[in-house]
């Protein structure tokens, strides 16, 4: 338990001052709220019942003096009324301050955690993201942070509150009457222990209800996503039966939990009320013997009323401390993963590059037996367009990821204008490269904002130019809101070809010295592809371009072609050179002419 408190203390970093103020307000609020029943008590005993003020305990006497003395209060009872309202009001101000400060602190911590997590996720290596489960990460960033926040907002204050209540009430009541105090607190310990043991034991039932709900939801989801199959096989009755089980299971498990809760609450109510009854009855007897005054009994009963509720919550809070520490541990696990390592920033700032690429003996292994890249070397001159061709698994995408420094190469060298990539800051490298992937990712923003991700300060006319070059401008203008159309969850859905063209426009706008197209036009028809590639050449006459190609039409636009297979370069050369020798390139080229011949064969004679 101590270790768990330590974790919380760590979390409160930066907000401890707020917490201190909040607890201070809580103490004051509690103190003022305490005084309210005392006013009632003093008034009843000394102003109304007519006991001698000389018998009063020091506290009551002081209070009575403050109100103007027993005699004044008796003749001016409204003073007591006013005092009660005023004290509650002042206590209320502090209660308000406590609530506000606790929220500033806990929500502040939650905000800091969320921001930290967000930034950290963006800086984790791509290889980590390859393995991680998105749903799980999001869960940790949201639910676990929320669990922590709730604890920091509510439970931490309740723990503080209970301690302060006990710490202040005990001396106060002891000053009134010692044996009565012992009797009033007799059952407090058992109540806390009961709650703690109970909630620790029903934890697994809460979990089983959650699981039942999950099972129910997944059956509904399965049914609804497969509704066409259900109808196609007319399996409605089968599905109803399949649904009835988890539906009933969820109900029954929930009922089981409720049954346990009903026992818990009724028993804890019983113990709490027994405590109150005990105090009342023993007190009444002592009032009868003159051991205790009616006013004092009134005070004891009122304090107990204040104590009982927080005390009953204490068992639950202590079990929630366990839940929170699990959540915090899950959050810390993310933050503990190392960010992408960075070389020290260069004193002379990022170099300006022109796109001369030189690759030597590059090897890379994803961790399997077969290396993804097995020693490749090639050069690309500034402004040259190089097409890379090869079957899937040849190593094309790995090469691209190494160029972008999404993965770190360990053997061989990649130089851009003579600079070894691994010695440049990653961000400097990425700023020099425009990349379009086969399934590009667009953000749920407007089309314009998506394009502008390429260059934040690009003026509107350049955005349009880029869109025209990527043959997407005409599609954009058909949307009702043109460039301001939202895409994604809150907007429209683009087709695969439209997404690819958007990504090309985005990369064009970036004006990088090196452009990489990874099968970036697979969903675009041949004619449009030609137009885009031509436009790219015109605009970026001097940009070095790497094109990973899956069809002949793409190759036609390249200066040079490199054929990759099983991590090695098996052919390289210009169109003329490669057409002259047997190989993948020539076979591909021959299809063009063979298609017609094949048709003639298939057609019926005549």
């Amino acid at each position: 338990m101590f270790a768990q408190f330590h974790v919380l203390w760590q979390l409160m970093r930066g907000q401890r001052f707020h917490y201190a103020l909040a607890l201070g307000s809580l103490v004051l609020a509690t103190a003022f709220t305490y005084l309210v029943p005392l006013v009632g008590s003093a008034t009843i005993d000394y102003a109304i019942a007519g006991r001698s003020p000389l018998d009063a305990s020091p506290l009551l006497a002081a209070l009575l003096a403050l109100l103007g003395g027993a005699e004044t209060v008796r003749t001016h009872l409204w003073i007591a009324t006013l005092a009660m309202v005023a004290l509650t009001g002042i206590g209320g101000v502090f209660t308000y301050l406590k609530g506000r400060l606790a929220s500033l602190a806990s929500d502040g911590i939650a905000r800091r955690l969320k921001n930290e997590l967000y930034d950290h996720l963006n800086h984790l290596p791509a290889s980590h993201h390859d393995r991680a489960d998105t749903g799980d990460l999001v869960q940790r960033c949201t639910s676990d942070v929320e669990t922590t926040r709730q604890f920091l907002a509510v439970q931490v204050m309740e723990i503080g509150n209970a301690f302060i209540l006990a710490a202040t009430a005990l001396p106060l009541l002891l000053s009134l009457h010692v044996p009565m105090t012992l009797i009033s607190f007799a059952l407090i310990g058992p109540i806390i222990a009961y709650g703690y043991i109970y909630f620790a034991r029903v934890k697994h039932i809460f979990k089983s209800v959650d699981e039942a709900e999950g099972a129910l939801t997944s059956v509904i989801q399965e049914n609804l996503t497969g509704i066409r199959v259900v109808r196609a096989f007319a399996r409605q009755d089968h599905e109803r039966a399949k649904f009835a089980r988890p539906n009933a299971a969820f109900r029954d498990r929930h009922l089981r939990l409720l049954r346990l809760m009903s026992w818990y609450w009724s028993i804890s109510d019983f113990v709490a009320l027994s405590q109150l009854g005990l105090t009342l009855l023993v007190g009444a007897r002592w009032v009868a013997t003159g051991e205790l005054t009616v006013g004092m009994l009134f005070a004891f009963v009122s304090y107990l009323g204040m104590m009982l509720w927080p005390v009953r919550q204490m068992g639950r809070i202590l079990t929630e401390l366990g839940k929170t520490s699990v959540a915090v541990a899950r959050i810390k696990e993310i933050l503990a993963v190392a960010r992408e390592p960075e070389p020290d920033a260069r004193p002379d700032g990022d170099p300006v590059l022109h796109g001369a690429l030189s690759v030597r003996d590059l090897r890379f292994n994803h961790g399997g037996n077969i290396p993804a890249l097995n020693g490749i070397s090639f050069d690309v001159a500034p402004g040259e367009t190089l097409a890379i061709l090869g079957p899937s698994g040849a190593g094309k995408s790995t090469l691209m990821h190494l160029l972008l420094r999404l993965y770190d190469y360990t053997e061989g060298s990649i130089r851009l204008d003579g600079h070894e990539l691994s010695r440049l800051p990653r961000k400097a490298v990425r700023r020099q490269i425009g990349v379009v992937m086969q399934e590009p990712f667009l953000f749920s923003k407007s089309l314009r904002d998506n394009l502008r991700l390429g260059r934040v300060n690009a003026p509107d006319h350049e955005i349009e130019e880029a869109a025209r070059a990527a043959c997407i401008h005409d599609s954009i203008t058909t949307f009702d809101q043109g460039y301001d159309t939202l895409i994604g969850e809150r907007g429209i859905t683009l087709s695969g070809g439209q997404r690819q063209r958007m990504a090309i426009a985005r990369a064009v706008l970036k004006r990088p010295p090196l452009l990489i197209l990874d099968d970036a036009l697979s969903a675009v028809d041949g004619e449009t592809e030609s137009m885009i590639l031509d436009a790219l050449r015109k605009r970026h006459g001097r940009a070095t371009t790497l094109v990973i190609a899956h069809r002949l039409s793409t190759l036609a636009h390249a200066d040079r072609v490199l054929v990759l297979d099983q991590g090695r370069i098996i052919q390289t050369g210009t169109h003329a050179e490669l057409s002259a020798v047997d190989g993948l390139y020539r076979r591909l080229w021959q299809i063009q002419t063979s298609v017609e011949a094949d048709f003639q064969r298939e057609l019926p004679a005549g």
Partner: protein
Amino acid sequence: MSSSFQQEDEFKARLDTGLWLKLFRRALHLKRYLYPLFFAAILIASCDAAFAHITRWAIDGVVRDGLKANFTGYISAYLAATLLLCGGVWLFIELAGNISNRLAHDIRRDGFDKLQELEFGFYDTRPVGWLITRLTSDCDRLARIIAWGFLDIVWGTSYVVMIAASLLLMNWKLGLIVLAVLPPLALVSKMFQRKMLLSAREVRKFNSQITASYNESIQGVRTTKTLVREQENLAEFEQLSSQMFAAAVTNARQSALYYPIVMTLGSLAAGLALWRGGWLALNDALSLGTLVAFIQFAGQFFNPINQMARILTEMQGAQAAGERVMGLLATEPKIKDSPAVKQRLAETASRRATQPALSVIEGMTIDTRTLAPDGGPHAIDRIEFRDVTFRYENGPVVLDRFSLTVNAGETIALVGPSGGGKSTIVSLVGRFYEPTEGQVLINGVDYRERSLAWFQGQLGIVLQTPHLFKGTVRENIRYGRLDATDLEVEAAARLVNAHGFISALDQGYETEVGENGNRLSTGQKQLVSFARALLADPQLFVMDEATSSIDTETEQLIQRGLETVFHGRISFVIAHRLSTIRRASRILVISKGKIEESGTHEELLARRGHYHALYTSQFRREREADVIAGG
């Protein structure tokens, strides 16, 4: 549409009592819980109110009689009230819990039932996530409000009435003074509850945006890195998290303000009781015990008023959810059996029960086993589209006076640009939609005059991304015919060439396919769905061929599997692969809702029109893919 299920409902200004009564009526059959709950609520309110009376009685007794006071009486009264209260608490959790859970279960069951009947047009405009929310959290929330709201309102009302009655009976003048605090208390409670509900929603709204933002940032992390957007992304996110922070702090401020205000009001009531009551006591017009009871009662108003204000606010907030759920339950399917068909279904069923398999109907001896449940012939020999025009609700015309006749044994390949109407034709064949104008005929009879369940039971469907259910491969194939034996399942898999790859899986037929079958490749999912369709032995087969690339080996398996499936049936295929297209007995080029060209592969090639162009480009693409894949 896709966004709406993420959003929170609007807050309804007026409480729609009709809607809530309708919902409440659904709980009426849970009488054995509802009635006792009513009494439990009153019982608890009585116990709550009794304590102050016992205190009063005890104090007065002790003040009057000293040690001779009736201590046994006080102890037993207190003990009795305590036990009753605890019993009441146990009862109400038990009863309200039962009502809420059983009601949620029943609404969910009825909603699920309804969803099994509704036509696909209903699903077109409602994303799955939206529907799931209706059946899960909406149902739970409404049932909870009904059960606990009923309890809170009965308890709260009777508690307030009892306090008020006690006050007035003890001393009506003093009682009236204390009761004066009630209206402002109710007003303040209602106002704050509303504010807090609205700001809590604001927090949830930002929270779901933050969740979406995390999701996006993780999925797009490579794009972020390559565009070097880390700084900007963080700045945008910080804006969002700050908005959430502000909303959360506002919400906390409102509740921090609410409690002190109502507490002060309660204190005012107690203070007034002390002032006037004290004065009366000084003049011996009021006992000390009564004075203490007055002060205690004055402080007790807050709880029931707060609970009732909360539940009324919650009802206003959940009203939109209530409307949606009740709306779903009240929706009537647009595609269903006509009354005439229903009658024939009933007649056939009773005839089957009473007559032998061979019977004489209208002068002819007929083997009733060859009849469909609606009394029509079971065999489908011909499907005909007669001048079919179709548009989706208020949309443009997708199919324009389309006519086509297909006989048993024929395979129709549909090709053409996307959005041309191919999918619509296939949906109309399956009667998942019905023609806007014109008719689809089975053996010359409009299919709206046949049983829907029977007809759809004759369909075998394989979609572009075939849907498999969570479970094993075997269970998925068996979905085609639930009573099929293991041998029959495997035989079907063999026929479509799926047996080989299934046996090669870790656990063979017992391999779990995962959610949506995601542990299998698209090609493998297609093979499994062929086996499933074949097991059902459909008379009509409908397929939307996958466009994504499938390796050559699987492709060959699929083609041979298809051969088995097509054999002897009427088949409609939205075809992309040349091998499938060539296998068809007739090819239709569909564009702009019309048949552009129609004929066999050879006829269409010779015509050198649309089909020729389409075929050429597809041919080249497939060849190129083959060459590149070959390395």
